[in-house]
């Protein structure tokens, strides 16, 4: 018989039907079903194909530990692979497909891999694809040749390429207590902590709270356990200091009890509500953490243990109790401990026609014997399952006498016809988060499992997560962990049934017999692979993991970890604790990348806009990023190329007047009685002598003597300066200055404030710039006497207060007009209006760059962190009268040699454009590149000179002036002659600037 829905039972809502599809076939289920339970209810036992061998695989578990039943969920064109069918809540219209099979799940051609046998064992890739020493496939080429085919034949699901349109968010939360796990232990912990007044967050992976109490069939506090858990959950939900997070995976434990969690907000819905995210990434900063994460049942390793129909005993119990499903009619239980006997009653209630228990132990507890008797099962003690048969799913098992002390089988194998085999190899506390928090897990001999380590952070485990498997212990430990009152006169704890069938397993992890016995189902790692790894010298558990891939994959070895370690211990003659376990790392289970990106999804960086940004866009400017800023590159007219645009703009600025938005320049208010002294220390030149309402060009070095930044600083008052920096270095300079004040000179009375955004800036320059200003500035003159070079005046433009400094980056007679940023557009408009009769043109970064290249002014391209003031011919700014940051280091050997890269100008001699980044060489030969003398830092067409020109950093550059060299740019196939000239290529005397 195939699995089917029972007539009654389960917690699903049978009155409503949900329709979904799997591999193109429509099925029906009910609210409360997972994809796995709904498919089982429809008689589906084949869920997928295995990683390497493409063996048919069914469902093994009923929860997050599922290694086999991985499917791909489709939402439109968006595909999300490798989701355990046991964790997918069905909804109307759900479309899921199986994966890693061709052409179909039922008939998979790659199943031929099973014939590969040992060839495909551990280390297959390393051994097979070393490649020949010679020939066309030498070295790694053979691997690269084969890789394409191997990748197609082996693996998990296929990622999609369609744009994920889902919404993802993140949220920060703070609480006194975070409780992970909403079973009886977690619920009691939450109740106790909440009643004390703590701020509590209770996170549960499942859609509903209750854990195993939802399907165990026991009673708590005189009620069915699932009713009791819902009652407690409802109670908690009504408390204002409690946040309940169902459908939430707590996946990471980080420093200072900071926890990472993923909430599946709308995965279970046909369509997310407007504004509702699909997933929400929680960062929870907890005062303390209670781990009530329960335990995971382990399989036993035996030949054919991966055949569909073989599943964990607790899974079958859950399918029966929570989903109303019988997993078969002829059911066998194979166990090494008592806990599996709790499944017998559930199987009987789920209408199984025959039951047999195969127990490796010769002696079992009276309680287990009574449970078997009550269920009317055939009891085969001291025996083991040594094989399975059936295709594609289980039809029979082979059972043989077994000695648990020698771990050997004997006698004649007996075949038993079954359609489901429920396996229990004991239970492992879910200690992953505790392990992530630090410390080594501790082996517990009684339960044959690792238990949580000594806490190194503020957490404690309660119930099964600690290795205490009874419901009574869960209730009591949860309550105590939550801080509940435990005095004699305290309110009694909810009454629980005595738990008499506990997991104290025999030390049996593997049954050795002929056939593939799987340890790690997801990666097709067999017991023989583990032995082979040991034989080949991989004796460390960390090496074992990486060589065999045991414990890797999306399930991270939840079911395979302990059995794998046990086999490794056995072959190496060590005990399991000596072998140890790998340190668990986040995430506990897969997390969507979108949730980690959250609101940054599709929006990697914020945009920084100047006050005149919208005007630039409206004028058709092509905007370009400058760090986070957006600046106009060119204001192209119809049909113009970039070069034509900037040449036109440059000519206008040189011949008439141009205006450019310089609001992005970094601006720092330097205030306080020691401000001038501070500037003397941070700049290479002196600022304490600067008169009020005057500006000075300043150069800043790093401590190591290299140039940090340059800019003008304006003295606005006796103790008040406005420092400007390059756009790119504003943050870096601010950080540098704050460090100096906080750490080096805390005695100085200086405050720094970023005022970049306080001011809108417009630089207006050109032969007619002063005329334009004189027509629109009120309250001050702008003539040469009132506003000399580097002078500052205050006035108004169109009724808005402005501050004007006469300085120039373009080489023209130019003025920087600053006003409050909120008035920036208003003043900009007024300047444009004033300039209408004077040929004023707005220009962008390309024209600005052209004019500065013509003038040989440096920017970040030359101040690249490797150049000194001398390299840039700025040594005239190095004061000899004072020390300053960098002065002690700037003269060291190597920073002043004649062969250093020095700033030069370049003129293209072949009439073709130069490109930034091209090398400068003495002789050009594309086939035999010669030694690089340096590189081009900036290039343009100079309308003033009528040539293509550039700036470059060239070894011994000053001494090479008026000589010929070549550009060598193999990447862009650009080679050609250039003349090295002075970097002052246009108006070297500065007559245009000074008027």
């Amino acid at each position, binding site marked *: 018989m195939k699995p089917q829905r029972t007539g009654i039972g389960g917690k699903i809502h049978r009155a409503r039907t949900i329709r979904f599809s799997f591999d193109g076939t429509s099925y029906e289920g009910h609210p409360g079903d997972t994809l796995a339970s709904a498919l089982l209810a429809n008689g589906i036992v084949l869920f997928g194909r295995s990683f390497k061998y493409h063996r048919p695989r069914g469902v093994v578990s009923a929860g997050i530990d599922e290694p086999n039943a991985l499917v791909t969920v489709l939402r439109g064109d968006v595909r999300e692979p490798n989701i355990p069918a046991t964790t997918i809540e069905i909804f109307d219209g759900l479309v899921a497909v199986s994966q890693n099979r061709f052409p179909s799940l039922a008939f998979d051609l790659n199943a031929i891999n099973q014939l590969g046998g040992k060839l495909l064992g551990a280390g297959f890739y390393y051994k097979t694809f070393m490649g020949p020493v010679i020939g066309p496939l030498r070295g790694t080429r053979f691997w690269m040749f084969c890789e394409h085919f191997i990748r197609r034949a082996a693996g998990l699901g296929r990622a999609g390429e369609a744009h994920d349109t889902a919404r993802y968010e993140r949220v920060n939360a703070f609480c006194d207590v975070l409780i992970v796990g909403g079973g009886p232990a977690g619920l009691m912990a939450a109740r106790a902590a909440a009643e004390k007044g703590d701020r509590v967050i209770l996170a549960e992976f499942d859609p509903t709270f209750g854990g195993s109490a939802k399907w165990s069939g026991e009673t708590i506090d005189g009620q069915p356990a699932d009713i009791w858990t819902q009652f407690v959950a409802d109670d908690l939900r009504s408390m204002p200091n409690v946040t309940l997070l169902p459908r939430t995976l707590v996946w990471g434990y980080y420093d200072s009890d900071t926890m990472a969690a993923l909430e599946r907000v709308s995965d279970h819905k046909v369509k997310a509500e407007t504004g509702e995210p699909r997933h929400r990434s929680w960062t929870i900063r907890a005062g303390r953490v209670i781990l009530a994460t329960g335990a995971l049942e382990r399989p036993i390793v035996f030949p054919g243990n991966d055949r569909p129909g073989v599943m964990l005993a607790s899974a079958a119990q859950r399918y029966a109790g929570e989903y109303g499903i019988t997993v078969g009619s002829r059911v066998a239980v194979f166990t090494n401990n008592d806990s599996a006997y709790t499944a017998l009653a559930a199987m009987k209630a789920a209408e199984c026609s025959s039951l047999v228990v195969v127990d490796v132990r010769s002696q079992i507890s009276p309680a287990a014997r009574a449970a078997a008797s009550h269920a009317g099962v055939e009891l085969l003690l001291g025996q083991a399952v040594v094989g399975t048969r059936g295709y594609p799913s289980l039809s029979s098992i082979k059972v043989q006498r077994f000695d648990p002390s020698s771990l050997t089988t004997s006698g004649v194998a007996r075949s038993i016809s079954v359609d489901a085999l429920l396996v229990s190899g004991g239970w492992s506390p879910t200690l992953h988060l505790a392990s992530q928090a630090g410390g080594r897990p501790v082996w517990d001999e009684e339960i044959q499992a690792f238990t949580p380590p000594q806490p190194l952070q503020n957490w404690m485990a309660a119930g099964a997560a600690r290795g205490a498997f009874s419901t009574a212990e869960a209730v009591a430990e949860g309550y105590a962990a939550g801080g509940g009152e435990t005095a004699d006169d305290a309110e009694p704890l909810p009454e629980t049934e005595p738990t008499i069938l506990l997991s104290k397993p025999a030390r049996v992890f593997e049954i050795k017999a002929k056939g593939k016995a799987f340890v790690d189902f997801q990666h097709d790692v067999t017991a023989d692979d583990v032995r082979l790894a040991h034989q080949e010298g991989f004796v460390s558990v960390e090496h074992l993991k990486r060589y065999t891939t045991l414990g890797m994959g999306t399930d991270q070895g939840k079911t395979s970890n302990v059995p794998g370690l046990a086999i490794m211990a056995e072959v190496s003659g060590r005990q399991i604790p000596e072998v140890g376990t790998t340190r668990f790392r986040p995430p506990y289970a897969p997390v969507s990348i979108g949730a980690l990106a959250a609101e940054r999804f599709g929006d990697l960086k914020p945009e920084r806009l100047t006050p005149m940004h919208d005007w630039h866009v409206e004028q058709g400017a092509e905007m370009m990023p400058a760090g986070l800023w957006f600046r106009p590159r060119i204001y192209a007219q119809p049909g113009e190329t970039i070069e034509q645009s900037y040449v036109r703009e440059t000519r206008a600025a040189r011949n008439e007047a141009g205006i450019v938005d310089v609001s992005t320049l970094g601006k720092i208010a330097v205030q306080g009685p020691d401000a001038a002294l501070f500037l003397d220390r941070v700049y290479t030149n002196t600022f304490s002598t600067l008169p009020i309402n005057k500006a000075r060009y300043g150069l800043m070095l790093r401590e190591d003597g290299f140039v940090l930044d340059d800019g003008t600083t304006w003295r606005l008052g006796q103790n008040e300066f406005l420092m400007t920096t390059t756009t790119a270095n504003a943050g870096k300079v601010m950080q540098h200055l704050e460090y100096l004040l906080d750490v080096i000179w805390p005695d100085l009375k200086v405050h720094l404030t970023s005022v970049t955004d306080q001011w809108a800036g417009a630089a207006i320059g050109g032969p007619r710039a002063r005329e334009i200003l004189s027509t629109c500035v009120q309250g001050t003159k702008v003539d040469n006497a009132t506003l000399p070079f580097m002078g500052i005046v205050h006035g108004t433009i*169109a009724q808005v207060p402005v501050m004007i400094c006469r300085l120039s980056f373009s080489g023209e007679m130019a003025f920087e007009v600053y006003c409050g940023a909120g008035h920036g557009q208003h003043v900009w408009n007024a300047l444009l209006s004033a300039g209408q009769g004077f040929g004023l043109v707005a220009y962008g970064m390309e024209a600005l760059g052209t004019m500065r290249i013509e003038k040989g002014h440096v920017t970040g391209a030359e101040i690249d962190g490797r150049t000194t003031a001398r390299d840039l011919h700025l040594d005239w700014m190095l004061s000899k009268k004072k020390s300053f940051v960098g002065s002690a280091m700037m003269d060291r050997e190597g920073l002043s040699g004649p062969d250093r890269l020095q700033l030069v100008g370049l003129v293209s001699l072949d009439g073709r454009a130069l490109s930034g980044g091209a090398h400068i060489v003495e002789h050009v030969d594309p086939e035999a590149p010669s030694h690089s003398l340096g590189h081009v830092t900036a290039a343009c067409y100079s309308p003033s000179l009528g040539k293509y020109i550039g700036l470059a950093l060239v070894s011994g550059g000053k001494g090479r002036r008026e000589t010929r060299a070549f550009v060598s740019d193999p990447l862009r196939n650009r080679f050609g002659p250039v003349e090295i000239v002075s970097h002052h290529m246009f108006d070297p005397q500065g007559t245009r600037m000074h008027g």
Partner: protein
Amino acid sequence: MVEQLSPLGAAYRPGRHGRVNDTVGATLSERQPGSIVQLAAWSGQEDAMRALIKDISGLELPATSGGGTAEPAKAAFGIAPGKVLLIDDTDGIFADYSAALPENIGVVTDLSHGRSAIRIVGPSAEWVLSKLFAIDFTSGAFPVGAGRSTTHHDIFTQMQRSGEDQFDLYVFRSFARSFWQTLCHAAGEVGYEVI
């Protein structure tokens, strides 16, 4: 008097947005106070600075980290050791403090154009802000009047709880539009209204 141009541009869309409910989870608005100034006291002069603020603005600031007070037309809160952000609906507050602040107490900086003021108010204000900032927004940890300096998505933000369910956020003007869009996006889940 020329009014300041909002940096939000077309991103400022009055009306209801996001999830449609009977009530909105948050109401978003751009405030345009006449004055935003930063007052920075020299070490040891913090009490004197607070006394000056009380004299000039009538605001009594607690001597606690981030301590502040909010009134309908003016507010102030600590943004860093010795530093206070003062907001006033009145223009020209910078000039008042420039004239009154002795050099030995500290300095005042005008940020009236440099910072944009955004207000979020409503039952879901804490929830929306929790999506953006790693701050405990519960009233016990973040009382009315108090301020915080923090960052979101590379955007430095100073904020004050100006009411039980009301927060005023001050961001660099050039980032304001980007921040506003992020804030609206975050509020979409609870439904929001822009006024």
